[in-house]
């Protein structure tokens, strides 16, 4: 299957600081999705990116898809305690693998 790595694995930030997680693939992706999993919960879809260089925003969240469609990032501006959770990227494809995830802790 596709190898998709996310960095960092863990991130602790003070509330109000920014946060970024990166998703890197060894192959060119047709599309990529991002999911959020709250502690004790199930993954919930955030967004899908399809086009090379695409940038999408959802309030404080900014998602980017690399020009070569091999990497993607999620940036959160001014984190809040409600942002706590693990963020996964998932490249499109029949087998629907997930990246390794980045666990975000926000310190009030």
């Amino acid at each position, binding site marked *: *299957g596709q190898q998709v790595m996310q960095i960092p694995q863990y991130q602790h930030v003070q509330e109000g600081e920014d946060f970024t997680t990166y998703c890197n693939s060894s192959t060119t992706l*047709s*599309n*990529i*999705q991002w*999911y959020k999993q709250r502690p004790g919960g*199930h*993954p*919930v*879809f955030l967004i*899908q990116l*399809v086009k090379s260089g695409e940038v999408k925003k959802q309030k404080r969240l900014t998602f980017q898809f690399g020009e070569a469609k091999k990497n993607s990032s999620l940036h959160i501006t001014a984190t809040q305690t409600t942002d706590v959770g693990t963020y*996964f990227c*998932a490249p*499109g*494809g*029949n*087998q*629907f*693998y*997930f*990246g*390794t*995830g980045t*666990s975000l802790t926000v310190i009030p």
Partner: protein
Amino acid sequence: NAGVTQTPKFRILKIGQSMTLQCTQDMNHNYMYWYRQDPGMGLKLIYYSVGAGITDKGEVPNGYNVSRSTTEDFPLRLELAAPSQTSVYFCASDESSGAGTEAFFGQGTRLTVV
């Protein structure tokens, strides 16, 4: 709209016992998936199905079996449970994985094998 429903929510099994984790979706999705998530870890794909009657192995299929007799149901069977199968199991579905449509997840089944 119920979405994806998993049962049971919790289960304790003894080593060597077997059980079936149920997963039903009411969105008429073709694609369905089973994942396991060990504590503090990511999601590992166990099996997936691209439609009724079609199943295939994912990353970690050993010790599990699946069937897909209908579009709605995708049960996961554990035979001869082992402590290594202690995990949280998630079922998911989407309309068409290849086209990158949104996947919907069930609430999960927390399984402990003792």
